[in-house]
């Protein structure tokens, strides 16, 4: 019994590990920023270079940072979803326009609609590196205390918004409320 039992158990354990491994998406790299203070940035606004967009001004409320560019196919794909989310007016969506052409980005927002409360222009990609961005679109949720609560890597969908973002937004507001 033991003679066959041990190899069988080993094979099953190995099989379970391999199955889990095969079903994981290697393109998904977990962010080390979750639970840590969001990297600060002050960047020019996309529409008006003289107007600075600063992450500090957003403290005290939950907010969303969406990394996009006109060169990014997935960003076009999620754009309508972002517009729907913006219409709910739950939290401000801040855009981080990543290594893009200013005129092309402004045209994009005029033609497709603008879901963003404000858009910061990261022409050199330094803020994106601070946030550990590696492939747009990426969407971060930041809590009222300025910690990163969640990161979604892929085009945003209503399902992801409803299951991953909304509960965390409500929880962060409740935690904030009980403190004060």
């Amino acid at each position, binding site marked *: 019994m033991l003679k066959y039992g041990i190899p069988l158990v080993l094979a099953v354990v190995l099989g379970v590990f391999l199955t889990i491994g095969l079903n994981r998406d290697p*393109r998904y*790299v977990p962010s*080390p920023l979750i639970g840590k203070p969001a990297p600060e940035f002050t960047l020019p606004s996309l529409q008006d270079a003289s107007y600075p967009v600063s992450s500090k001004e957003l403290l005290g409320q939950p907010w969303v940072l969406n990394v996009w560019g006109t060169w990014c196919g997935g960003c076009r794909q999620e754009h309508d979803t972002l517009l729907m989310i913006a219409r709910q007016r739950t939290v401000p969506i801040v855009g981080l326009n990543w290594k893009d052409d200013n005129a092309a980005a402004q045209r994009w927002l005029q033609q497709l609609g603008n879901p963003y409360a404000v858009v910061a222009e990261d022409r050199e990609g330094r803020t994106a590196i*601070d*946030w550990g961005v*590696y*492939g747009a679109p990426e969407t971060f949720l930041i809590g009222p205390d300025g910690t990163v609560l969640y990161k979604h890597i892929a085009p945003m969908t209503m399902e992801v918004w409803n299951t991953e973002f909304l509960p965390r937004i409500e929880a962060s507001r409740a935690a904030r409320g009980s403190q004060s």
Partner: protein
Amino acid sequence: MGKIFRAVVLAGLLAWGGHALAIDTEAAFDDPVLQHRYESINRELRCLVCQNQTIADSNATLAQDLRREVREMIAAGKTDDEIRDFMIERYGDFVLYRPRMTAQNFLLWAAPALLLLIAAVVLVRVVRHRAQESDIEPADGPEAGQP
């Protein structure tokens, strides 16, 4: 005529192909020591857009940007460890091609030694078992335990 034409086309293609292969060939530093550090750090960092390539091998925009960060940090006098930590803080351990030992991956590091230990224990037990068997049943003769 045909031969010359072919030679010219071939030479042109070769010249063009070399250009396509050249990634980050321009020296970032005049100082050969700094240049060596720059190249060796780049060869240890993963390009996360084009996984399974280092940022030294890739011409993706992110790889270019990360090389720029490395170059600037070396110029600012940061140590190799500080540069690695900068990358890990942002992209996690996955950015390293030579992983560190951490609490989470300790089992992975220890696995070869553990497996060797288990194999040794099994081997010793099997050998002892066979030795005992042949003591008890000498009648089987030298062929005992053989197929």
